[in-house]
């Protein structure tokens, strides 16, 4: 534990000014009256203009991490049981619900997977963009509308002036996601959480939306936490990658190092399972088995039941994060980084 604590302290020191700092986050969820750690001792920091990708398959804890950061864990079902989350200098875990609410939408924005359903069908998009400005910055309706128009132009919605009073169903998927981005950025947040922002879009629109996001990120100095299972998206926009499995961070690396030398067996398996144009589809290697449910998670390394490199020690004690070759590249594996 001393190693982890030291690493955490180090991370905190290095990233004192980072807009988003997560230290030793453990989030528990309740299943049948028992609490299970669905996110375990996760630490990272996201700097201004940096994109950190949280990668993993469904149920690995990446979305739960995002909800913890937003302070939107469902009451009675999820709770933060340890750790600290600092957004723009404010400790979200110690904040009252009222001050957490004031942070959301103002200093921390979020965009969702489904642009089709994340907009209110009976309110105009202009109003929905303006709304958080009215709520958080006390703008008048007219000021907020003017700003909403600027934001629609900022996210490059064509003919913004004519579409400000249109409804969500009058927009295509890509345009709706642009509206969602405009809403999230309305109050000029320091941190943007993008939860599978392009999964529901087709590939060409994906590329446009990602390019727009990257551009806005540089312009506004955003720290972006990107949650995805799409390694193609990671390769194109992320600066750093954190791979999660069963609630644990199993690998953390710069994006180049990650794709050049994926070190954790789970990361290797993820990359091998990704279709690539330069390989035949038959060469896809699925990962055998499935993610164990929380009550079934084994002691020791949580990936052991599906791991090709398993040794006896994996079942005995959980591995710790350890450096793997280059600085900033660490892995949780007894075999690869003992």
């Amino acid at each position, binding site marked *: 534990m001393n190693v982890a604590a030291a690493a955490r302290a180090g991370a905190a020191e290095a990233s004192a000014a980072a807009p988003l700092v997560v230290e030793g986050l453990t989030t528990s969820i309740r299943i049948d009256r028992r609490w299970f750690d669905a996110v375990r001792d996760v630490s990272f920091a996201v700097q201004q203009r940096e994109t950190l990708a949280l990668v993993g398959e469904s149920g690995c804890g990446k979305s739960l991490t995002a909800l913890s950061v*937003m302070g*939107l864990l469902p009451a009675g079902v999820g709770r933060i049981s340890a750790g600290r989350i600092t957004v723009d200098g404010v400790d979200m875990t110690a904040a009252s619900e009222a001050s957490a*609410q*004031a*942070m*959301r*939408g*103002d200093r921390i*924005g*979020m965009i*969702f997977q*489904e642009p089709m*359903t*994340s*907009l*209110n*069908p*009976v*309110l105009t998009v202009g109003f929905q963009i303006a*709304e*958080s400005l009215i*709520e*958080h910055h006390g703008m008048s309706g*007219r000021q907020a*509308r*003017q700003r909403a*128009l600027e934001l629609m132009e900022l996210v490059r919605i*064509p*003919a913004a*002036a*004519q*579409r*400000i009073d*249109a409804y969500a*169903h*009058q*927009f295509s998927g890509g345009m709706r996601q642009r509206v*969602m981005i405009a*809403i999230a950025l309305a109050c000029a947040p320091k941190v943007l959480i993008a939860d599978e922002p392009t999964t529901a879009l087709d590939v060409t629109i994906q590329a446009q939306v990602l390019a727009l996001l990257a551009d806005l990120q540089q312009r506004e100095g955003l720290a972006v936490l990107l949650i995805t299972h799409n390694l193609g998206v990671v390769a194109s926009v992320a600066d750093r990658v954190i791979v999660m499995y069963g609630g644990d961070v199993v690998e953390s690396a710069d994006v180049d190092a990650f794709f050049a030398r994926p070190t954790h067996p789970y990361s290797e398996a993820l990359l091998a399972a990704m279709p690539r144009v330069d390989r035949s589809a038959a060469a896809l290697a699925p990962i055998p088995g499935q993610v164990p449910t929380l009550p079934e998670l084994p002691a020791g390394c949580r990936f052991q039941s599906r791991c090709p490199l398993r040794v006896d020690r994996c079942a005995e004690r959980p591995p710790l994060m350890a450096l793997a070759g280059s600085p900033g590249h660490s892995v949780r594996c007894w075999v690869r980084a003992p």
Partner: protein
Amino acid sequence: MSATTAATPTATPTAIAAPSAWKRATRSGGLMIGLVIAAVMVIIAIAAPWLAPYDPNEQNVLLKLEPPSADHWFGTDAFGRDVLSRVIYGARISLFVGAFATLAGVLVGTVIGVVSGYLGGMVDRIVTAATDVLLSFPQLIMGLILVAVLGANMFNLILAIAITAVPAFIRVARASTLAMKERDFVDACRALGFGGPRIMFLHVLPNIMDEVVVMGSLWFAAAIRTESTLAFIGLGVPPPTATWGGIIRDGFDNLLDASWLSIFPSLAILAIMIALNLIGDGLRDATDPRAPQ
């Protein structure tokens, strides 16, 4: 706004507008017929002093129980009062009581239902239990008890009928809110740091209004029916004020030899019932996404 007007609409967005709910609604004849009948009724009620040929309460013992004639289209009652004039004035009471009772029931019931559904937990359990208890009384019995306890005057009548409507609207609004709460845009609102009241009344409420309005038009009919029934059994707006239920009651004693006394107000009730139900069905069809478009 200046930017909007300054921009030349060269590239108008090519949104292919789906037929609006209004267009879909008016395409079916039922809703239109219902609206026309209801509109005529409302006009009659408002214009009663000019439309009614006689004072509805003017008695004339020489002309009692006259059958329909050119002078008295709907005949006269046992006091020699003109039945047509009484039916016209009766529309005022029935529509007024029905409208305000429904409106009050919709307002109170919908607010409670939305809050209960959105907050969940203990509040929701208490509200649901109370609603179930209230709904277990038949509407008429409940109205009857309330009027009997409160006393029969117009305000108490509206209050009593509104109270019978509240649990039904709680139930509809709560169920719709529960469905709405699972929608992504509500999560998005929470991620934007919006508080409960804003989410409930600005985001959820407009999305459930279609169901509430459909329910409202059907309950409007039920409220008029309850008002008439209470008047018929003598618990309505006290005489001599003309109400449809009251006129039927007055005519009931002479039903065999002067059936027009009861028939004409009954027809008036029937017409408004049919109209409101046609409106309710038409609105439901128009707002139901599963309906063929």
